[in-house]
């Protein structure tokens, strides 16, 4: 894309200068001139009273693009406090399979600053290539810098698929990159597959609050971008693999960002770490009150489990937001999930149905939760759980 100013038409009125959010246009010798700060947003095109500014678009963006130029799968790594986050490895595990189907390379893309010594280790998670963009400023997450670095990298390398964690970071930069590239982006996927004939990525996600699943594809353009929900795919086992490392060190300065991080405040840590918990005890409306949740907590304590709940328990302030499991909360996949007084709306099931063993305790025999449960107990939880706690204590004392 490029922006063109017709200097015969331009009157030097400077309307464009005022309209530009990036100071990307100035008046020199009574004529508007674009400088390097321009990001082709087109704001000036709109305001020019004499239509002297034209935004010219590349041909392929209008015509059908040649998608065969695009090749390979990229996983964009997410890190926090210098640690690569589990979602990155989950994406690697899934993508390795997709790359094998497509017979293409899998690249892990890391934007960061302190990973030099860890790259070999990351290679064991299935990557053919690691692209490491290194700069001190990439230690923290700046929306606009991430977008710029990634977009430039994608334009240059043309991967056909780009996978990003559906986290507060991924969901912040992915749409902006997609817009810059005019690429299709599917949010919060819970299933990924390949149509081998067309190389289309089949992106499945819950929609309408999780009541319905939709499979989305991007048939006529590349790259195909998706954000993927954490906790859905499993991290792969490490294996030896030859990995090609590409290190890029661009010069990025703090003033390149328009927003400024003033302060980062660490919140008081809850003991809640549902995503990595081995055992979860969760309560629903059937628990009845905040007071009654003590019983559920007791069960969790006896089991050494984390405590979670359905959406309604958070809305009623029985539990904290961090403890919500389901479509609008967390997705969990523990070895054991005990659902107490949870009816099993699809919105909840989406968040826990990958658990290895599901136990449901509910007095309504028709509750949908029983359809996903491995063991169902049709009983009043207030009677059953005390009995269960006793039994568990017995079993534990034997061990």
């Amino acid at each position, binding site marked *: 894309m490029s922006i063109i100013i017709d200097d015969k038409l331009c009157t030097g009125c400077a309307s464009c200068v005022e309209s530009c959010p*990036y100071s990307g246009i100035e008046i020199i010798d009574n004529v508007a001139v674009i400088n390097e700060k321009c990001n082709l947003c087109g704001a000036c095109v709109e305001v020019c009273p004499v239509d002297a500014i034209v935004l010219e678009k590349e041909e392929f963006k209008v015509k059908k693009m040649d998608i065969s130029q695009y090749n390979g799968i990229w996983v964009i790594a997410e890190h926090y406090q210098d640690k690569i986050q589990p979602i990155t490895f989950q994406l690697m595990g899934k993508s390795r399979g997709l790359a094998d189907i497509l017979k293409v390379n899998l690249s892990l893309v890391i934007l960061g600053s302190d990973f030099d010594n860890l790259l070999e280790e990351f290679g064991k998670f299935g990557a053919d290539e690691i692209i490491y963009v290194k700069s001190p400023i990439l230690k923290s997450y700046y929306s606009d810098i991430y977008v710029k670095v990634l977009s430039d990298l994608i334009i240059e390398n043309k991967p056909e698929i780009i996978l990003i964690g559906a986290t507060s970071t991924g969901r912040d930069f992915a749409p902006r990159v997609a817009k810059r590239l005019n690429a299709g982006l599917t949010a919060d996927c819970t299933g990924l597959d390949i149509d081998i004939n067309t190389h289309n990525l089949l992106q499945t996600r819950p929609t309408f609050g999780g009541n319905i699943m939709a499979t989305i594809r991007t048939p006529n353009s590349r790259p195909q971008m998706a954000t993927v929900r954490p906790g859905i795919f499993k991290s792969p086992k490490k294996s030896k693999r030859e990995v090609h490392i590409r290190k890029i060190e661009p010069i990025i300065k703090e003033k390149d960002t328009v*927003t400024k991080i*003033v302060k980062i*405040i660490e919140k008081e840590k809850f003991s809640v770490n549902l995503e990595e918990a081995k055992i979860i005890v969760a309560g629903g409306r059937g628990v009845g009150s905040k007071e009654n949740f003590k019983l559920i907590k007791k069960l969790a304590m006896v089991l050494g489990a984390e405590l979670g709940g359905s959406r309604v328990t958070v809305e009623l302030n029985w539990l904290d937001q961090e403890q919500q499991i389901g479509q609008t909360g967390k997705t969990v996949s523990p070895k054991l999930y005990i659902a107490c007084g949870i009816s099993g709306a699809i919105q909840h099931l989406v968040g826990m*149905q990958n658990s290895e063993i599901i136990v449901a305790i509910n007095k309504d025999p028709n509750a949908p939760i029983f359809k996903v449960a491995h063991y169902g107990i049709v009983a009043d939880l207030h009677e059953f759980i005390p009995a*269960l706690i006793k039994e568990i204590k017995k079993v534990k004392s034997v061990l």
Partner: protein
Amino acid sequence: MVKLHNVLNSDLNLKIFVCVKQVPGVAEVRIDPKTNTLVREGVPSIMNPYDRNAIELALSIKEERGAKVIALSMGPPQAEEVLREALAMGTDEAYHLTDRAFAGADTLATSYTLALAIRKILKESKKDETYLIICGSQAIDGDTGQVGPELAEELGIPQITYVQKFNFKGDKIILERAFRAEEVVIIESNLPALITVLKEINKPRYPTMLGVMNAYEKKKIIQLNAENLKAEKAKIGLTGSMTEVWRIFIPERKGEHLILEGSIQEMATKLCENLKDDKVL
């Protein structure tokens, strides 16, 4: 939580755009098991709940320091209802982007269309004006949260998503962004900017009687179609969308189901035995 500075600066001439969406009341959406399609009949439509928080924030800024609050919605003719509600809550103006050509838009096409309307309105603005765009963090039907950032990119302005606290600091805005469970990031930005808000940011007001009357009798909803917006056909609606829905289905439920029987005590014993055999206890 830190206390944010609040420095009033009345020199700033501010327009606030709030993007709102009409969504089906989610819990009510059902699938017809025979045809495997959405049953839309009888499903009430509501304003996306997060958008109500966006309107509330815009109105509170207006009350505190003065601003013109403009609600925008792209959608079919009936989406006028949510704009009427926005006006009743207290927004000054409402624009309804409606045209058959907009139908089937994915987030790319939607953000393009919204940007055209905002540019058109800004073009008619005074020179010393700046603006803020507020969106809900996501809509409860699609749950993508993509339109906000894509709109910011289209307009070339900064974005701050998932905002849970907002304030002014001189001519700048200063915000708390929810970032992971463990962290809150405080971010400062210049205007113009786009923010998306979480429901924690405030408690939306209800329209007053007078507000409702004004919304129907005094205020008008301005309709804009593709032609008014000089929209490029290749960038709107289905044509302008890169993604397409290939298949819609009801989620499969897996698992073997064993309903335990007996007295409370018997069931507790059986469950523990089974869980021991499964090596989870």
